[in-house]
Each structure stands twice: as C-alpha cells, then as structure tokens.
C-alpha cells in the first residue's frame, strides 16, 4: 500500500471517528423521539469552545474537559425541556425549524459568550507525529480513535446491560409499548438529549487540537454527522459509527485523489446517492409503510 494511501486512510479514520460520534448523537435522539436535532453540531462547538475558555482561565485539562462536557449536556437538556417538549406532536417541518432555530440561537449565544475568532487547543500528549506504515499520524489522532473506540464499547455496554440503556432501546423500538411496561418515556427523551450533547461535546474536544474551533464550527460538522447517520441508517448505532468512518474515509480519499476544492461537496453527493438508491442506509431497518 502506498504511503499516500495510508496517510489518507489514517486521516480519513480520524475525521470519520468525529463524524461517527456526531452521528451517534443524532441516532440516539432520533431513536428516542423521531426528531432530527439540527442543533447537534452546536454541542460539538460548545464542547470545544468551553474547553478553550476553561483552560485559558487556568484549569488543567483533567478538570476542564469534564466540566465542558457537563456544560454541553446541560445545554442539551435545556434544549429538550424548553424547545422540543412543548412542541411534541408537531409536524416534521415544524420540528426541523425548531431545532434549526435552536442551532441559530446557540450560535448567536456562543458569539456573545466567546468570540468569532478561531481557537486552538493544545494537543493532549504533544504533537510529534508518529510514523505508521510509511505515513504519519498525530498523537491527537490516536486519542480521537482511542476515545471513540472506548465510547462505542461503553455505549454498547450501556444499551445492552444497564436498565436505563435497555429502557432507551425499548422506547426507540415502540414508544407505546415502552410506556405500557412502565418506562418513563419523557425521562428517556430528556436523558437522550443530554447523552447526545455529551457525545457531541467529546467529539468537539477531541478534534479541537487538530482543526481549530470557533463559534460556527458546528454547522458543517453537524450536517456531515447527519449525513453519516443517514448513510449508516437513521436510528442504528452501528450504522452511525460505520457511516461516520466510511464518510470520513471517502471524503479524504476523494479530496486526495480527485479534487480538494470540492472536499465538502463529496459528503453531500454521497448522501444524495445513498438516498436515491438505498434510502434506509447501510444498516437501517428496511421499513414498510403502514397505509
């Protein structure tokens, strides 16, 4: 394998891991509520920016990072409580506009709380590249891949072995049946927003040392994470992860071998192709429609 190919692959995996985390956030919320949360990208932004300002005010990473994650989770919970819950039962278009309005609101808020500049975080363990099979990888990329793997395993354990996780899964399969067996569906919805926000924040913190962060970094990341979720099949956790990785690799490969000017377009072209030919994505439920 040529060194160039390896380099693209590694970069693609890193970027893809971030998309995977964002896509997981989308899928969790979609599973609990059938709402596409267009504000997901803003959680990524909040994670990164909060860490920047917390470390700038002197806190060490070990304190700043959990605090930033908690802050993002709180924003996610507030979003659910004040924007999504009052509008339950509204049409798809209305809910889409609400979450998009929320993302605009959060971006405006971020512009005020922080500023419009780009900010960089110091890499967790230094920035001397490591040589792998002829290519180089940043230590931060190893962090990205490692933490994503840990999170995926943790979520698998959570959804498979804990009562709360199983309750969330049950809600995603059938709202009514879950309520009938005594699951507090509103609580599940509430927590799913918090969990997704935390995931997004982690993604933002991981990627900030590599690509700088700013108040509007959430827009593209959110859209691409959404695209990854659809590619993998909306609502499928495995699909979200695979979709994210595939999207990241496809994007980097096309940017490298085809045209780097159109790097961002590739993601959307892929999405259109998937939607035209395989709308339920790679792992989605091949649903029928009730007439």
């Amino acid at each position, binding site marked *: 394998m040529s060194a160039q190919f390896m380099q693209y692959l590694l970069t693609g995996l890193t970027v893809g891991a971030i998309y995977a985390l964002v896509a997981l956030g989308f899928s969790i919320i979609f599973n609990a509520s059938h709402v*596409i949360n267009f504000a997901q990208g803003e959680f990524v932004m909040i994670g990164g920016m909060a860490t920047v300002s917390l470390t700038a005010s002197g806190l060490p990473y070990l304190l700043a990072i959990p605090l930033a994650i908690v802050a993002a989770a709180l924003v996610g919970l507030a979003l659910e409580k004040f*924007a999504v819950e*009052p*509008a339950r039962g*509204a*049409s*798809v*278009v*209305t*809910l*889409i*506009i*609400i979450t*998009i*309005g*929320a*993302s*605009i*609101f*959060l*971006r*405006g*808020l971020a*512009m*005020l709380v922080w500023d419009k500049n780009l900010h960089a975080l110091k890499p967790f363990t230094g920035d001397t590249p490591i040589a792998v099979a002829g290519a180089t990888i940043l230590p931060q990329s190893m962090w990205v891949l490692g933490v994503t793997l840990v999170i995926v395993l943790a979520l698998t354990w959570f959804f498979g072995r804990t009562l709360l996780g199983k309750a969330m899964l049950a809600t995603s399969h059938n709202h009514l049946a879950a309520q009938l067996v005594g699951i507090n569906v509103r609580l599940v919805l509430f927590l799913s927003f918090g969990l997704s926000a935390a995931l997004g924040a982690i993604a933002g913190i991981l990627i900030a040392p590599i690509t700088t962060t700013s108040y509007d970094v959430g*827009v593209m990341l959110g*859209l691409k994470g*959404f*695209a990854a979720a*659809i590619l993998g099949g*909306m609502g499928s956790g495995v699909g979200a992860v695979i979709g994210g990785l595939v999207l990241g690799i496809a994007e980097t490969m096309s940017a490298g071998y085809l045209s780097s*000017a*159109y790097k*961002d*377009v590739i993601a*959307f*072209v892929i*999405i*259109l192709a998937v*939607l*035209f030919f395989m*709308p339920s994505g790679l792992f989605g439920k091949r649903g029928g*429609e009730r*007439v």
Partner: protein
Amino acid sequence: MAALATVIALLPLALSNNYFYDIAVLVGLNAIVCVGLNLLIGYAGQISLGHAGFFGLGAYGSAILASRYGWPPLAAMLTTTLAVAALAFVVGRPILRLKGHYLAMATLGLGVIIFMVITTEDKFTGGPDGIAVVPFRIGGLVLQGERIWYWLVGALLLVAVWLALNLIESPMGRALRALHGSEVGAEVVGINAADHKVMVFVISAVFASVAGSLAAHYSGFVTPGKVTFLHSIELVTMVVFGGMASTFGAVVGAAVLTTLPQLLTVFKDYEMMVFGAVMMGTMIFLPRGVVPSLARLFQTGRRRDAAKEDGA
C-alpha cells in the same frame, strides 16, 4: 386578492424613503419565492430545504448570461428559468420518492451542492466575491431605482399569487391536496403521485428562479450569500410562519421575516440569538402559522358570540 392589490397600491404612502422601498422590494421578491414554495410544502405536503439553490441558480444564470456574455436580460432570464426548470424536473423525480426527514436531507444536500459549486467555480461565478450585474432592460427601457422596481415586483407578486390561487382551485390543485392528505389514497383514486409532485416541485423552482434573476438585476450584483442553507431555512420558515397551505400566509410570512432582521439590527450583537429565538418561539406557540391561527381565533370568537346569542 383584491386586498393584496390594495395594500401594494397604497403602501407607497407609508414608505417615506428609498430604504423602505428597498425593503419592500426584497419582501416582494421573497414573497414570490414563498408563494411557490408554499405550493410545495403546504399543499403538496413535501419539504424542501434547498430552495435557495434554485434562487441562486436563477440569480447567477441571469447574471452570467447578461453581464458576462451580453445577452439581453429578458432572454437571459427566460433561458435561465428554462434551465432551472429542466434541472428541477430531472432531479425531482428521484428526490421526491423520498419522504419526511430523508426528503429534507436530500433537498438540503442539493442546495448545499449548488452553493459549493457556485463558490468554487470562481472563473465562472466570481467565487465568494460574486459578480456585478447589469441593470434590467426591456427593449430600450432601463429599469433602475427602488420605486420602479417596487411597482414591477408588486405587479409580479400579484401575478404569482393569482397563478398560485388558480392552480390550487384547479383539478391539479385538488390532486395535490389529495396527495397531501394521503398519498396512497390519492393513488387509489387514480392520481399519479410522482408526476404531480415533480410538477409542483418544478413550478416552485421556477418561481424561485425568476425571483432570483430579478433580485440579481435589482441589486446590481450577486454573491453566494443568498444561496446558503440558512437562506433556504429562512424561506421555509417564512412559509411555515405565515401558515402552510395559505398563499397569503406565505406573503405575510415573507413580509414579517424579511423585515425582522432590519428591526433586529437594534439588538446588534444579539441579532442572531433573537432571530433563532423567534424561529423557535413561533414554531412552538403558533405551529400552524400566523394566518391560520389568527383565522381560527376569529372563527372561535364568532362561534362563541353566535352560541351566546342562541343561548340567551
């Protein structure tokens, strides 16, 4: 309809300077797009998060043909509109097989792709800086200046509304409403869902493209700033805010949400926050939109009075 004509005719009395005329023209242009978009969203029940793309194609097409290649503006506009209609036709068929969030994502993707192509092909389109556009000419008559454009756009808005209203009352309009109610049911009665959806998609794209061409000539330049995802969302919000399945609602929505940012400049730094908050608030509290909600308020008021009369 007569009310709208009266408003358009009398509004200049309230507009004291060119700045207000400018806003009115922008409102009118947005309203034309929204009337078309409303046919798609409100009556046919589809979604499009990418209509700024058609608007932008209309604007850039007119701009490039008229300014770069020296075509007469009218011919440029007609050619561009035909091209956009063809694109909408070709893309519409596979896209409109999707529903709900998938359709939203597909139209979003389409809009973003159009935006990125426009921004990247800067030899053609001037990239992020855009290009200058010659003023609109019909024959030897040059149309420039806010007041002249106000009457032009006002007249075109009336034409657009008239076309939309006629379409809604026609058999095709009824077919669309049947589609919205139940796609399977409509097909059972013999309505070709795919054909109708594509047709209304093309019509709404044409409205957007024409508005875009006019906007390019009016402003004197085009930039990718109007072709963004945000602008598509603004258009959809105008339609939903004013009331889906209400043509006048679309006009009202366009009017309110075009003037809102002007009012919000008072808030300066808080502008984005307030805009987002307004979007959320109106969707949460007035989910059916302004015009239908107000109409219902009037109706319940009247019904309550009638009941009181009967009871008393």
